[in-house]
């Protein structure tokens, strides 16, 4: 599957807490990204079939549908050049091992400021100019 030409960049945010999703949405949209939000694993998997993602921020603990780690691994397999960040409540050998083995780019403390996570994830992106024919937006699934 080859990536189509596109001018806007797209971020996937997966978290069970709507207020966290909203905070990430504001931050990504403020940076000119389209933000696709998902509250659970099935919704996130559906989004992977419908969009090309440059960045993904995923909670390691999803309320429904389970674990965020394998989802991060799937994102990495489908979009190997995407930045994949995982929000995790603890930094331990096990979480770091899960991150390595699922192709995660970086882990963040679950309580991290969304702006910090977004800035860090975008700083790893290639700097191509973002020219949009329409305003960046947000899709809530």
């Amino acid at each position, binding site marked *: 599957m080859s990536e189509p030409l596109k001018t806007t960049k797209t971020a996937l945010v997966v978290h069970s807490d709507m207020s966290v999703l909203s905070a990430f949405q504001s931050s990504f949209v403020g940076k000119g990204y389209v933000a696709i939000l998902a509250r659970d694993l099935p919704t996130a998997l559906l989004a992977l079939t419908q969009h090309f993602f440059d960045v993904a921020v995923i909670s390691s603990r999803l309320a429904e549908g389970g674990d965020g780690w394998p989802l991060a691994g799937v994102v990495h397999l489908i979009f*190997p*050049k995407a930045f994949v960040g995982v929000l995790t409540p603890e*930094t331990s*050998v096990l979480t*770091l091992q899960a991150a390595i*083995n699922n*192709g995660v780019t970086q882990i963040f403390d679950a309580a991290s400021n969304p702006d910090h996570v977004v800035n860090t994830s975008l700083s790893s992106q290639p700097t191509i100019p973002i020219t949009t024919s329409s305003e960046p937006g947000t899709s809530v699934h």
Partner: protein
Amino acid sequence: MVNQPSLLIVDDEANVALTLKMVFERDGYAVRTANSCASALKLLENGHQFDAVITDLNMEKENIGLEVARAALQLHPKPAVVLCTGYASVDNSAAALQMKVDYMVTKPVDLDELKRAVRRLMAFRDSDPGK
């Protein structure tokens, strides 16, 4: 003649290196072994190409396997790099994540997991022209 995938196994315990060599040779890999970081670096720096490198973490020195991983990750084409350790810590695991090591297994090694991971990483590498 079929082109065999090539593998470098680095472990200062000769028995471990030999066992992994036999396991992977039985699966059709061409395997070289090195019993120290220094000898692994010699192989990597002398133009030997490997599809995957499996390295122990603690050999001549603590965490020196990260040097093997770092050297391997700088090669083009980049081999899949697997760290294999009985002494994982937050510090060395964080360093491995930052270096973009492809996989980490803890000793005692689950051979099926290791074989699956190497097979998957090599397939992933083959499908990604950027690697």
